[in-house]
């Protein structure tokens, strides 16, 4: 994974417009959050291989970055993205990592199931 290059990510988002594609998105505070600090509320969610289609999409911010994808009847939104995999040509893999490198949030798009 490399630090996000917004122009490159923007180009890749455009390549997925108006097609049925698979999305994987997730967010987690970590399963041990409340074990390490009882004041913290552990939470996580993910959705894997849902099929979506969007007509408009962009990345914004000065880092960590935000991505918004406009679908026919709703939105996909992710905040906190820091890295992407520039070597993946067919899939767009983006994630947000905290100061220790742990994954906090991810948004991935692909034409094939993950």
């Amino acid at each position, binding site marked *: 994974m490399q630090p996000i290059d917004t122009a490159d990510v923007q180009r890749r988002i455009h390549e997925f417009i108006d097609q049925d594609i698979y999305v994987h998105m997730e967010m987690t505070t970590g399963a041990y959050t409340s074990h390490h600090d009882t004041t913290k509320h552990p939470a996580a969610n993910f959705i894997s291989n849902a099929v979506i289609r969007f007509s*408009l*999409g*962009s990345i914004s911010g000065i880092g960590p970055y935000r991505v*918004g994808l406009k679908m026919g009847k709703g*939105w996909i*939104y992710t905040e906190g993205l820091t890295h992407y995999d520039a070597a993946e040509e067919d899939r767009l893999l983006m994630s947000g990592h905290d100061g220790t490198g742990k994954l906090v949030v991810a948004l991935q798009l692909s034409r094939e199931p993950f």
Partner: protein
Amino acid sequence: MYQSILVILPHPDDECFGLSGTLAKYISQGAKVTYGCLTLGQMGRNMGSAPYNSRVALPSVRKKELEESCRAIGIQDLRLMGFHDKTIEFEDRELLDGAIEDLIREVKPDVIYTFYPDYAVHPDHDATGAAVVRVVERMPKGERPPVLCMAFARDLESSIGNPDVFEDVKDFLKPKIASILSHRTQFQVPGLDGANSHKSKELQERFGTERFWTYPFGG
């Protein structure tokens, strides 16, 4: 003195702390206010204490809170613009700018209040201000109403200087406090809900002046 004021903000409650006193003041002098609220703040995290509101219930709860706030201020014309919370920066610009332009053409305001783009912290605030600025910038120079902006980013004075418009709203703290209290899922401000809170010296200091930056359009 303004006859016609247009307010364009993204969330129910964006009006209450920084603008409600100014609006109540001009309304008392006869101004008509149209408030275009772009979203229902449906992604807000504050759901209120009891009774518990679900994610699905939140937009209608916040809509009622906004209507109550508008009544408290005296706002005559509230427009719910139907955009989705958190998405203003990603929205189709033609759609967003077109909706704002239609409202400006209809209302023909003497002044527009919004957020200062890039200095209003929340991405929806910045994107709303940027859209208003884009639309007004396209108007012929002589027809542009002044755009007065709220801003609160850290260290903003070093970039955009000090506010140039100060409104003394000490005599309008009653509607201002009522506006803040309307948004009960969003704020629990200690000491605000007393019958005579608007007379308190501390609250007059804290809420008695509203500050705006006039947006500097080029040629």
